[in-house]
């Protein structure tokens, strides 16, 4: 059996046996990315709805900036958070660098523009269809926009899943602010990078398979929701 085939077989054995190191790493990945998405969802959905409803000078520039942040490189986010939380940084006193909390903050910053920009698009489209009628019923602009989040809840669920997929599969930010400390801040992506560089292919492959399965599952759920519910397509502009 070739070395690669042997590594793949070992990887599946690690998954089947629920290897403790593997489980711990996967669990931390879910906790960090899930926490980041919950935090970013509150802020991002409110920001998206508000941007769809509000009319103010410079709104187009804000939207352009938000669109630009969609392509925010994760290493840049990592660097900014690192500078903020390093000993000499403005938030250094918090002492959370190289902890899961810093990783959650970094991923929150990473996915916040995605949630805000995509929810803005969803709400703005819905307001074009029914905003006038909701306003005529007594809703303020903001209330009408928030009702549209409820109206388009399946599209919102889809964009939140997309944000989770982005968070759980990124490596740059968590590597910089988490430090990839075994048992403390090691998540799937940082572990894959490390194990591959060490030549420990079975664990790297096992984590890769789990990560790929998670992303595939997310995409399957998104497809299911979109087709089953007639959800409007959420497009990256």
């Amino acid at each position, binding site marked *: 059996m070739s070395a690669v085939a042997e590594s793949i077989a070992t990887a599946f054995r690690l998954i089947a046996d629920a290897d403790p190191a593997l489980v711990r790493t996967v669990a931390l990945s879910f906790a960090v990315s899930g926490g980041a998405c919950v935090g970013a969802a509150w802020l991002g959905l409110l920001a998206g709805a508000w941007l769809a409803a509000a009319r103010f000078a410079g709104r187009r520039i804000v939207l352009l900036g938000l669109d630009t942040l969609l392509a925010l490189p994760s290493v840049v986010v990592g660097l900014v958070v690192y500078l903020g939380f390093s000993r000499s940084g403005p938030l250094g006193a918090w002492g959370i660098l190289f902890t899961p909390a810093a990783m959650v903050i970094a991923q929150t910053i990473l996915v916040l523009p995605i949630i805000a920009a995509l929810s803005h698009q969803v709400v703005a489209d819905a307001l074009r*269809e*029914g905003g*006038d*009628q*909701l*306003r*005529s*019923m*007594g*809703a303020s602009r903001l*209330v009408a926009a928030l*009702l549209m989040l*409820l*109206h*388009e*809840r399946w599209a919102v669920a889809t964009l939140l899943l997309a944000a989770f997929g982005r968070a759980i599969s990124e490596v740059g930010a968590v590597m910089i602010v988490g430090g990839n400390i075994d048992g403390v801040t090691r998540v799937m992506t940082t572990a894959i990078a490390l194990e591959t560089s060490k030549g420990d292919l079975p664990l790297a492959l096992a984590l890769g398979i789990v990560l790929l399965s998670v992303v595939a599952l997310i995409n399957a759920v998104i497809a299911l929701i979109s087709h089953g519910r007639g959800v409007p397509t959420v497009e990256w502009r």
Partner: protein
Amino acid sequence: MASADMPGPLLALREASVRFGDVVAVRDATLAIAAGEAVAIVGANGSGKTTLLRLLHGVVPNSGTRSVGASASQAMVFQRPFLLRLSVRRNLLVALWLGARGLAAGERRRRADEALARVGLQSLADRPARALSGGEQQRLALARSWSVRPSILFLDEPTANLDPSAKKEVESLLAGFIAEGMTIVMSTHNLGQAKRLATRIVYMDGGRIGADLPTAQFFAERLGGRADLFLKGDLSWSLE
């Protein structure tokens, strides 16, 4: 232009105009709506019916004066009602939450059930609102507006997209509202419907109010000019 003289109007326009860019959709409209009236705004396509209705409802920017009675509340039923992707009952509860602030949750539920019964949709209360037929959706829109007990109900071509049976159901509901004393202002291209439901007709021609008369008089008199052409069917209209 003949003008109806109504004491104590719920709503009045004085020389009100609406512009969309270079186009004047409604020009110098002056009219008053009194409590209990059923007013039909008729006219050819593009004559300004819907804009006048929206102007009366206060949802388009205008020049001139629009005054609303102190206690007057309004609701509007649109040609294609926008329903939230929620159940029929929840759509009503949202409308009551928006339009009748201060009602306790229990009272909102009671009113929602009452409104569903009023339009005959009780058995569909838990169905997704968007799964209803066109006629049922329009009845739900009527229930939504009726449930907040408006002083004036505006309707924009309420039966324009409905089949004859659904049209009849909606007309019957509107006749009921009018019989109960609700003030109604509706735009319609359907002169038969205007004749059946309205107590007063406002005829729009090129953005201006061309005639404002009690229904019987509108259909009995020779109005002259384009109004006669409209009534004869030489301008677009339908008598169904």
